[in-house]
């Protein structure tokens, strides 16, 4: 692909802290390479802001290779920007043209309060995982993985669900700020495997109870979450979650 440079106008959400009202500030950036990642463009802008003795823009990032789930920008009306199946860190500037205006906002949901600028507090996801998003394993030597037979189709579905990196784009995209795609990926990942079987019922009930407690909305099957998910987690997982939940609630004694 041809290399080119571009001048851009950025409209970025700035907010000093949790209690600040916040607002958009416009920045002009020059000579941005088409080969930069979106976050590298922010690095360049932040270097300049530091030189000008201004507060740099705070944003979440860690691995910068699309697997950690830390980056979380809502770019031009879409979580993680215009590319499908891509995290913000893997979005490259060749997605934009010279002269473009780019609006960058934090994830918006009551359950994801803004900490600073583009960083939101996603510990609500951690608490959902703590409620049941794991399997209980005795300590000791690792069990030989191949000793437990698993149906190929189930292993594939479980693996696809396990690809969820918990970035929260599903919540950011959903009109109801629903965390169902995230929870359904975690529930499906474990419910499809024999290791998840013993705690299958309590897991789904506890995780949904925690999800509701955190104030996420309900699912209306619009599919916006699936469309923006950088790991392309399928909406089918939500239907599986519904099935698991209904089954578990009916079968639970009291």
């Amino acid at each position, binding site marked *: 692909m041809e290399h080119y440079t571009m001048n851009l106008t950025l409209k970025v*959400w700035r907010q000093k802290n949790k209690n600040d009202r916040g607002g*958009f500030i416009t920045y002009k950036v020059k000579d941005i390479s088409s080969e930069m990642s979106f976050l590298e463009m922010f690095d360049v802008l932040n270097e300049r802001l530091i030189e000008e003795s201004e507060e740099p823009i705070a944003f979440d990032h860690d691995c910068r290779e699309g697997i950690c789930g830390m980056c979380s920008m*809502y770019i*031009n*009306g*879409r979580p993680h920007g215009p590319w499908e199946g891509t995290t913000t860190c893997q979005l490259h500037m060749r997605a934009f043209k010279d002269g473009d205006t780019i609006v960058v*906002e934090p994830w*918006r*949901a*009551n*359950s994801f309060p803004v900490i600073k600028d583009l960083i939101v507090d996603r510990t609500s996801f951690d608490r959902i995982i703590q409620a*049941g998003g794991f*399997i*209980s*394993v*005795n*300590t000791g030597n690792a*069990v030989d993985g*191949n000793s*437990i037979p698993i149906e190929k189709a189930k*292993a594939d579905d479980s693996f696809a669900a396990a690809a969820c990196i918990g970035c929260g784009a599903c919540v950011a995209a959903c*009109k*109801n*700020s629903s965390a*169902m795609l995230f929870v359904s990926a975690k529930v499906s990942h*474990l419910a499809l*495997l024999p*290791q*998840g079987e013993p*705690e299958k019922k*309590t*897991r789904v*009930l506890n995780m*949904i*109870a925690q*999800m509701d407690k955190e104030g996420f*909305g*309900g*699912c*209306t*099957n*619009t*599919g*916006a979450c*699936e469309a*923006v998910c950088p790991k392309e987690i399928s909406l089918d*997982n939500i*239907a*599986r*979650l*519904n*099935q698991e*939940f*209904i*089954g*578990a*609630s*009916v079968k*639970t004694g*009291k």
Partner: protein
Amino acid sequence: MSVRALFLCPNLQISSTTMTWKHIFTSSIGKKLVMGLSGLFLITFLIIHAGVNACIWAFDHGEMFNKAAHFMGSTVVVRIIEIGLFAGFFVHIIQGYVLEVQNRSTRKIGYEVKMGNKGSKWYSRSMGLLGTLILLFLILHIYHFWTPSRLGGLWNIKPLQPVSYEGGKEIHNLYAEMIAVFSDNLLVVVIYILGCISLAFHLLHGFQSAFRTLGLHNQKFVPLVKGTGAAFAIIVSVVFALMPISIYLKWVD
């Protein structure tokens, strides 16, 4: 992938939980379940209603239609089911509005640039609005036909004209009432057609969404249910819309 899962913990750490009926139906999935089940129940009603409507195309000046309407209005079992139907409407409408308010309140600060149609269809995001349009239509529709048919003669409500076939018992001439409502009344016909269009889009999302809420994820059945839902939404709405159109354009008399 290794079958060892990502999180290593001591034995069975997930605490057991109580799940009473109250817990189930106040949980986010339980609330959706109420919407889905009541929606599917109302869908079965639409089939019956469209079937009775289709009797006008027997071209017998409404005889078959009036007999069918009489059966629906005078049979004890049907009248008992009718109470269930009103309950179904009530639950679906109230729960729908409650969920709409709850879901809207989950994002106090909105986005500067809206997502719009990036990733979802407008009608799937507008079920509350479409439902409200259908509700307004429903109120008008009940006033037009259900009220005179069931409550005619009470208070100041004008009863329907009687008609009898082959010297049989007198029954309501609902057909004549329909001709009176729709003939030469373009505004009413247009409102009915708009009601049917709202219904079509509501069903286009609602039909398949109800099955998803019930847990359908088998890829052999998902496309089947989506296709059936789309066909159902279009066919039922067109059959409904054709009724005022047929009368207005005098295809039936």
